[in-house]
């Protein structure tokens, strides 16, 4: 399809004229090809890398009889129990056989468990918020790595915030588990652990409002 413009001269004067070729090349096939390639690359490209949430579980004691639960300060202990149908129960303090605390029913919404955890964890949350604000305003200039280690230090220094024990009941979905760990990250809880339900709590769960 190369565009050729011929200047045909009708006069037969015997002189041979060099044929004049136009320099314009038809680019249409090239455009077609490139279109195809671009489409291919656009469809196969993975632009955003997947994000991950990090979680560290306590090491398992192979001999269960030896495993001793670390002592948790009664005033700081908060137990969150994940129930069926996206329900979250929680109670403060520790459960004793003679005086079972009643479970408070809530959910994963903005005013649910998050509100309670924020209230309990206010000192640390404010501290971290203030720290982040300072960095944003430019009052503190730190390389990115040391920001996270500084935040870690703040978390480790926390002496009053709640210690959250997360317990999952039998039939919950994986989403609930991720959601509750995510709530810990949102509310900047310094200490939390994923543990199994104990018999007392099973009993409490039965009596809990559905």
């Amino acid at each position, binding site marked *: 399809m190369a*565009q050729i413009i011929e200047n045909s001269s009708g006069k037969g004067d015997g002189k041979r004229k060099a044929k004049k070729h136009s320099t*314009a090349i*038809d*680019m*249409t096939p*090239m*455009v077609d090809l*490139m*279109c195809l*390639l*671009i489409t291919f*690359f*656009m469809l*196969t*490209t*993975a632009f955003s*890398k*997947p*994000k*991950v*949430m*990090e*979680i*560290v*579980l*306590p*090491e*398992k004691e192979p001999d269960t009889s030896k495993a001793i639960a670390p002592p948790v300060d009664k005033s700081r202990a908060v137990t969150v129990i*994940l129930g069926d149908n996206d329900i979250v129960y929680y109670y403060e303090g520790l459960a004793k056989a003679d005086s079972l605390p009643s479970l408070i029913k809530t959910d994963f919404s903005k005013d649910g468990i*998050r*509100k309670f955890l*924020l*209230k309990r964890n*206010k000192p640390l*949350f*404010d501290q971290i*918020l203030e720290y982040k604000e300072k960095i944003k305003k430019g009052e503190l200039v730190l390389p990115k790595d040391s920001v996270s280690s500084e935040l870690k230090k703040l978390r480790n220094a926390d002496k009053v915030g709640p210690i959250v024990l997360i317990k*999952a009941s*039998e*039939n*919950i*979905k*994986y*989403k*609930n*588990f*991720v*959601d509750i*760990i*995510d709530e810990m*990250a*949102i*509310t900047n809880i310094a200490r939390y652990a994923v543990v199994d339900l104990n018999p007392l709590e099973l009993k409490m769960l039965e009596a809990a409002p559905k």
Partner: protein
Amino acid sequence: MSKIKIHNKSPHIDMTPMVDLFALLLTFFMLTTTFRPQEPAIIDTPASISEKQAPDKEILSISIDKVGKVYFNLDNGPDTTTKFRAKVLEKMGEQYKITFTPKQIETFSKLAAFGMPIQYVGKWIDQKDPAGRDKLQKLLQDQKLDGIPTDSIDNQLAWWIYFTRQIDRNIQVGIKADMETDYKVVKKILDILQDKKVNKFNLTTNLEKVEVKVEN
């Protein structure tokens, strides 16, 4: 009456600027592209606020789909000489008394995630194209043989994890499960991993922004 003159213009358009533009775009895509890995199953991950990016090298990833079938994947390591996939497959072959031909091992190191008992992995490798592999997966699914066995009678997943960790001590573990997967299944996988002394996990999630305000 004056006649309207119609100019006899050539219908050809100069394509050169368009070619320039396309060449630019093409170069951009070719340079930035990282090919989307082939997914063994459709997994709709839950959302979280975490902004940490998934590591792209030295990761052992376990995918769990909606119904709780387990898929396993690992990469070849930091460079082409490490060949982790090939080594792990050889070890698995030794463990289960299955011999893989050098060609099979070579092909395996180029493939991605799989979810089937080790007895069928050879067959899976021998398929000529992805469509054949899908078909095999479908066939296994019909016989209820898909997914890597995780039960205590024949815990193949534990062996895969064990050999992978033996070959690469620094490998990180990623878990990708569907929102609707039962927590019980995930818990079982976590238990298997903890038995193999893995205590740190990366859970794949979608990024979701959350605004938090403290009330006074």
